């Protein structure tokens, strides 16, 4: 959150945004899909959650926007090889827009006050941003597109809640692991090698 909104995107940030858009795309490729009971569920929402958590609100949203721009341009980058304008006018179109809101909210909560992510805040971010915000945009749009009343659309959408809850858990665990394994990924001041807190000490004597 340290950078002002008006600053130009640095090359480092641009590369990170491009690569994260590619990560979300790669999670939709065959093999990146885990199958629960024969119905393919997409790992792409997991990528959206992680985009916000790793890149932060601004860059995470941008990464999702870049992916959606390429999808709109006719690249089959959504799970199952879907893409083009058709993906936006169908029942799941609202969820795609919701991804941008979700990535923003996840990033805002995970990096609240520019602090290091802790597991409970990350978990809250995944539930609020990664699930609630995506549904909050997706369900009303789905209701309009399919002409199913809002209440009934909510009920129909509950079928996807277990999968999304599982992805929120995975995303939380992954962020926790990433903070320890590759803190550079977050590109934040607390991740600098010269961090001044005792935690950064290379000597594990007191553990």
């Amino acid at each position: 959150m340290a950078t002002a909104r008006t600053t130009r995107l640095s090359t480092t940030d641009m590369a990170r945004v491009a690569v994260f858009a590619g990560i979300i795309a790669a999670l939709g490729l065959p093999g990146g899909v885990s199958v629960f009971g024969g119905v393919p569920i997409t790992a792409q929402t997991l990528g959206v959650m992680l985009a916000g958590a790793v890149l932060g609100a601004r860059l995470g949203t941008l990464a999702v926007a870049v992916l959606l721009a390429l999808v709109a341009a006719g690249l089959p980058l959504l799970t199952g090889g879907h893409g083009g304008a058709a993906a936006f006018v169908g029942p799941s179109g609202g969820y795609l827009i919701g991804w941008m809101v979700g990535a923003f909210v996840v990033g805002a909560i995970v990096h609240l006050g520019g602090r290091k992510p802790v597991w409970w805040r990350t978990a809250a971010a995944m539930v609020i941003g990664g699930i609630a915000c995506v549904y909050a945009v997706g369900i009303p749009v789905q209701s309009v597109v399919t002409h199913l009343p809002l209440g009934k659309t909510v009920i129909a959408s509950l079928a996807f809640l277990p999968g999304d809850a599982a992805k929120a858990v995975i995303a939380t665990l992954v962020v926790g692991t990433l903070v320890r394994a590759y803190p550079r990924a977050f590109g934040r001041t607390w991740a600098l090698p010269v961090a001044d807190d005792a935690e950064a000490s290379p000597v594990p004597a007191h553990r």
Partner: protein
Amino acid sequence: MVTLYRAGTSIWHRLPAGPKAVLLAVVVLAVSVLPAAHWWVAGAAAAAALVCYGVPGIGMRCLREQLWATRWLLLVTAAGQLVLQGPRPAAVNTARVAAVITVAALLALTTRVTDLLDAIERALPPLQRLGVDPARAALLLSITLTAIPALARTAAAVREAQRARGIRGSLRLFIVPFLVGALKHADELGDALTARGIR
């Protein structure tokens, strides 16, 4: 990279990207706002799709392929509607969703990705007032285009390495090494851009 575009010479292929997008959006919107209370709406939705695909050079085979590609979405839509709304709304609304998706699919089917990207880039300058740098945005899109195949390779390499160690099908175990590999690639990409004088 594989795209949705199919080469051809139909009227849809010959229309420029911008007007075509607008025309298809009008058809999609018209089909979308029809009421669900009448059977004829299902017929009207189907007719819209048939007319759009019926032009010489596109054809019904293409329409069938598009419907087949969206079968899961349509099945889920139909099932939900049938349980919660009854048979007539289910039939009408599923037909409507099928028509909307297939008609919108014509844009990507008949327009080259480069033409659509150009159209998107032409739409960017008005966003300048919101703090969007059009040249920067265009560069970002093209960097992403080249990054995607590299990331697909990274994903395949991680999966192969895990298979060799007997790990299968765990999303969580796959994603951490994939992310670290991908983000290291991002750092190299950033350095490469800087080295080429892009700041």
